[in-house]
């Protein structure tokens, strides 16, 4: 078991990287063993474990009290395996805690590759800003500091400008697609 003295603050990049490294060493062998026993490859184990860490990260941002990331991670990995390989879940021994785990509903939405690629070229700053606020759940105060805004108010106003900018990009792109339809 990993001894976590105080709960790491995963909003801090260093603490996040440290926790992920710790979990990698501690839990990846368990997930890899599970995947290997069911005929999966090293690459399968890696993919599933990486997705499981993403789901764990989101869960940790959501829930203030989080006792055992190790068990949770193994549980998510099993669910991801069932989903990915349409394995029969009745054949898997899931305990009660594992049964209660769920993968976010939107996790398997079609990837917005095209828009993200476009924004990667023309709107990276906005993507970073919106990710910090909506995905990494940073406060406007933190965002003000990280992005160098003078006030939280200007950070907030830039955030909405960015939403509109990306919204307009989507609009332009979808008009483009309709033209070809």
């Amino acid at each position, binding site marked *: 078991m990993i001894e976590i003295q105080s709960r790491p603050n995963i909003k801090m990049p260093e603490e996040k990287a440290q926790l992920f490294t710790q979990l990698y060493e501690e839990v990846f062998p368990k997930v890899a063993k599970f995947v290997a026993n069911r005929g999966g490859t*090293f690459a399968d184990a890696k993919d599933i474990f990486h997705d499981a860490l993403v789901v764990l990260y989101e869960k940790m941002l959501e829930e203030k009290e989080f006792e055992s990331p190790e068990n949770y991670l193994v549980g998510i990995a099993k669910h991801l395996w069932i989903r990915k390989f349409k394995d029969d879940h009745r054949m898997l021994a899931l305990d009660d805690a594992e049964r209660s785990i769920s993968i976010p509903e939107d996790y398997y939405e079609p990837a917005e590759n095209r828009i993200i690629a476009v924004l990667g070229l023309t709107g990276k700053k906005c993507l970073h800003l919106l990710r910090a606020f*909506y995905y990494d759940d940073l406060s406007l105060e933190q965002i003000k500091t990280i992005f160098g805004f003078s006030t939280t108010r200007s950070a907030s106003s830039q955030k909405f400008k960015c939403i509109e900018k990306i919204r307009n990009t989507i609009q332009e792109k979808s008009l483009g697609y309709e033209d070809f339809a």
Partner: protein
Amino acid sequence: MKTSHESKQIERYLFGKLNPASRLVFEARMLIDPMLRHHVENQRRVYAIVRQYGRRVVKSEVTRIHYQLFNDPAKEDFQSRIFELFTKK
């Protein structure tokens, strides 16, 4: 209406933060205003895109850790423990 006011309002609608009365008014406006409907749909996609992008960034951070652990000579025990699992007996 000033756009940033509109996008704030759309956000409150999408995140379920409008009180029932404002929500009704907003939904009525959407019925008669196709432009607003478009904006709502596209803004919904903005949040989905940001989430997908966030997940990608986390995955790239994790991938970096993966390569560190699998290239660090000091982690040989860890590496062989994993590779043994995937070697056909």
